[in-house]
């Protein structure tokens, strides 16, 4: 496991201090036309901590991620990165601030080779002029190494990424985010498509990232996985927050109950009376 | 942001000034012409007649342009309001004629390239007592359809005369170049040529792409060295044929149907042997004028027979007279 953490330690920003607020969201809201996807969200991502965002489908988790990763700008409230208030105009800007995201739908291009996908958007070039060549050998080598560290060996680094299994693709996406993410790592439902063993690998990675000083945002609808690594828990429901507690303030049972429906579940059990 | 905008605007301004400056110091373009109106004539519509002019023109053909110019000049000269419409598709052309009938025009001039398709609309016109004249195509059927007069050339006669002439010049294996797939008129011309020059072979080219025309002709002339004459059916194709001939080193002579300024010059320079002109300008002009006279005075031209505007041969012997007219786009 140490080889994995080596990468994290190498690529993490050397100036991170534990507890330092990296992302601060105050009253964030987002509407798509007449639909209000998020309202009044307060969230803090601190260095060296894992913030878990839980919620059922349609709760607004994806929207929250999109705002943090620069895909869509927020309509209400303020977003502060390193204390400076700003709005991301594109994912490129978020990446430049050291915020790397592993999306639920993986953001890979199926027809392209594994190494091209790994370096997509952050390619290594031989020079700064417009048609500078890519450092292809180097990129292939690095991609291969990083994947090996995660425990995946692809048969051919040149094969189209679409030929890999879902779990392998997920690991490529995570390895990519870890390699390029220097300050904040956002993992959108990382264990949803994985088996138990691979989920274990991902969770260990999450812990290692936290230990290396990164701020981690872990989105899931699996409270057990969340409780294994989280320092802070937020549950979203229909665009609003229904629970916002530190690890010390909440137990796994309460998390699970709230996730399953909280008060409504209690009512339902009374009605069904079995 | 503001600074780069100012700089951007300045750059555009400088570029504009430079362009205008360079524009002033160049030569070889259009001659400065004195104000010339295209011939006097009465104000449009002063005779009170409206005439619909319907053709099967494919947009962009210089040949049809001349017909249109003739028609427009005639409209000016006689004070007629001209309504021009066109569609190469027969069914759609029939609809255009029907439109004219519905808008109660005073007269209709139309090409009759696909007589069966147009018969219904022409009948509707004659039933509504609107006089119809045919032009350019349909020389054998115009009377049956109910048209009063016809102005045009006989494609088959034109083709045959071309064939006769090139045979007289010693051609044994002419090439007839069709530049529009599926055109009945063009096929008729080549068939005419073949009837009096039996060794004639047809070749299809893509008339909308000059480089394709040139390459295809060049390939053919290279493949078959026995070709001694190239007959094209349009002026621009003839120009491409000249290029292909030079590139392939062929000794074939070139002749063409239809005329334009460049071809006229090539005839003068002896590069093109002759051109068979059907005088499109006069077809358009006479169709409109004849309708006007018919409406005004009940006059009738042709004596029950078509009024032939061609074929007329333009070659070295008469090019000097004709050249200035091609430059004015009236011949």
């Amino acid at each position: 496991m140490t080889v994995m953490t080596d990468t994290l330690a190498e690529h993490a920003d050397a100036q991170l201090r534990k507890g330092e607020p990296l992302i601060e969201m105050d009253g964030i809201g987002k509407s798509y036309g007449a639909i209000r996807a998020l309202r009044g969200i307060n969230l803090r991502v601190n260095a060296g901590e894992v913030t878990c965002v839980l919620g059922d489908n349609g709760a607004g988790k994806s929207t929250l991620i999109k705002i943090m990763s620069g895909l869509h700008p927020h309509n209400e409230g303020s977003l502060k990165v390193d204390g400076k208030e700003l709005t991301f105009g594109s994912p490129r800007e978020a990446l430049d601030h050291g915020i790397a995201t592993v999306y639920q739908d993986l953001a890979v291009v199926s027809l392209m080779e594994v190494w091209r996908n790994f370096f997509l958007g952050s390619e290594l070039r031989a020079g700064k002029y417009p048609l500078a060549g890519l450092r292809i050998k180097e990129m292939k080598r690095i991609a291969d190494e990083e994947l090996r560290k995660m425990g995946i060996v692809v048969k051919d680094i040149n094969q189209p990424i679409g030929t890999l299994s879902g779990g392998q693709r997920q690991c490529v996406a995570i390895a990519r985010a870890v390699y390029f993410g220097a300050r904040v790592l956002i993992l959108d439902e990382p264990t949803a498509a994985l088996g138990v063993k691979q989920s274990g690998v991902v969770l260990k990675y999450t812990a290692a990232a936290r230990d290396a000083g990164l701020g981690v945002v872990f989105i899931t609808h699996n409270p057990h996985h969340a409780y294994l690594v989280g320092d802070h828990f937020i549950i979203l429901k229909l665009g609003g927050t229904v629970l916002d507690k530190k690890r010390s303030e909440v137990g796994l049972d309460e998390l699970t109950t709230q996730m399953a429906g909280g008060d409504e579940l209690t009512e339902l059990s009374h009605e069904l009376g079995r | 942001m503001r600074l780069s905008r100012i700089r951007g605007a300045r750059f555009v301004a400088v570029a504009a000034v430079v362009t205008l400056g360079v524009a002033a110091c160049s030569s070889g373009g259009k001659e400065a012409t004195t104000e010339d109106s295209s011939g006097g004539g009465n104000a449009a519509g002063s005779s009170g007649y409206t005439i619909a002019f319907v053709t099967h023109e494919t947009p962009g053909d210089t040949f049809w342009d001349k017909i249109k110019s003739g028609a427009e000049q005639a409209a000016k000269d006689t004070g007629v309001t001209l309504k021009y419409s066109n569609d190469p598709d027969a069914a759609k052309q029939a609809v255009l004629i029907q439109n004219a009938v519905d808008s109660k025009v005073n007269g209709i001039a139309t090409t009759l390239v696909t007589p069966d398709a147009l018969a219904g609309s022409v009948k509707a016109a004659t039933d509504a007592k609107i006089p119809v004249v045919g032009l350019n195509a349909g020389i054998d059927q115009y009377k049956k359809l109910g048209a009063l007069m016809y102005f045009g050339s006989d494609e088959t006669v034109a083709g045959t005369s071309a064939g006769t002439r090139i045979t007289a010049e010693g051609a044994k294996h002419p090439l007839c170049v069709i530049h529009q797939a599926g055109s009945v008129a063009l096929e008729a011309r080549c068939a005419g040529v073949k009837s009096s020059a039996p060794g004639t072979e047809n070749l299809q080219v893509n008339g909308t792409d000059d480089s394709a025309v040139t390459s295809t002709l060049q390939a053919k002339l290279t493949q078959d060295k026995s070709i001694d004459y190239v007959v094209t059916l349009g002026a621009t194709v003839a120009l491409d044929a000249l290029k292909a001939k030079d590139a392939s080193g062929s000794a074939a002579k070139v002749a063409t149907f239809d005329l334009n300024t460049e071809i006229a010059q090539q005839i003068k320079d002896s590069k093109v042997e002759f051109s068979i002109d059907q005088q499109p300008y006069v077809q358009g002009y006479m169709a409109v004028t004849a309708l006007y006279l018919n409406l005004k005075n009940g006059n009738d031209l042709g004596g029950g027979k078509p009024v032939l505007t061609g074929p007329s041969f333009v070659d070295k012997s008469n090019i000097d007279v004709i050249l200035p007219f091609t430059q004015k786009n009236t011949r």
Partner: protein
Amino acid sequence: MTNVQTSPPPSTAPLPQPSNRVTLGLSNRLLARPEVGALVAAILIFIFFLVSAPAFRSGESFFTILYQSSTIGIVAVAVGMLMIGGEFDLSAGVITITAGLVNSMLCWNYGMNLWVGAVVSLVFCLFIGFVNGYLVMKTGIPSFLITLGTFFVLQGANLGVTKLVTGSVSSTDISKIDGFSSLQAVFASSFKVGPVTVWITVIWWILFVALAAWILQRTRTGNWIFAVGGNPDSARAVGVPLIKTKIGLFMTVSFLGWFVGMHLLYRFNTLQAGNGVGNEFLYIIAAVVGGTLLTGGYGNAIGVAIGAFIFGMTSLGIVYAGWDPNWFKAFLGVMLLLAVLVNLYVKRMSTARKVG
């Protein structure tokens, strides 16, 4: 910084090696590449015509075919790149004539040096490319439809403006205007190598293909092009400048359209304003025959060049073989279908041989 928990470094523990790792043989890797399928098809067609058409066998014929291929191939390179980027441009055929007409009429009317007109025409064409790309990105309407609109606008404008300016539907003789001979040297000259005439467009074509191949395979821009064509959302999410890349691709098409327009103008002098229509599909066919996926994200510049060459060979080969020209279109269609099928078969054969 918190301390990272480490156990003593496992110095001898190697990274896991796969037991079933397969290094694909060179021949397999070669066959899987899209341009190889097209090359096989091209060779087959070439041999076919060598056998059936004696006139095909000369050097001059070969270079005539190269010339014909280059006038289609130059624009096809850009159209192919655009298709790899996931979009279509149906205005690519007409814009060649627009470029020539703008240059010709501007200079004839105002007496400008032809070089100035050529530059103005270039700016105008790049602007059209920009508008195409901008509209596609801003409205989200498929590029097929947007460029269809541009195609009709340009087709009508070509005719209407020419008629307004020159009084007829073909542009005027510009051979006497300053700059003609130098522009002709750049865009429309030829030189003889022994008995064979080589047109400069062939040289330009080869240069553009090499440049495109470099960009696609070996630069960051190429990576972006494949990404925005394969999965535009993913590309954007990882920081690829989606809008700039796509607009850039449309402008590349209009640039090369301008280039061929200049060749047409300086070779043929007068242009028919209604020309150019129909070529837009030839460019797409050349790209598809060369292995470019219609859905985007996959393709190759060399393949597109081979596709254009196949078109040139087929259209002129039929003439060289002396076949009945009425069947021309049918023969062309059959040849092209065969080329695409061979291409597909070769690709399937190579992927089926992969182990595991």
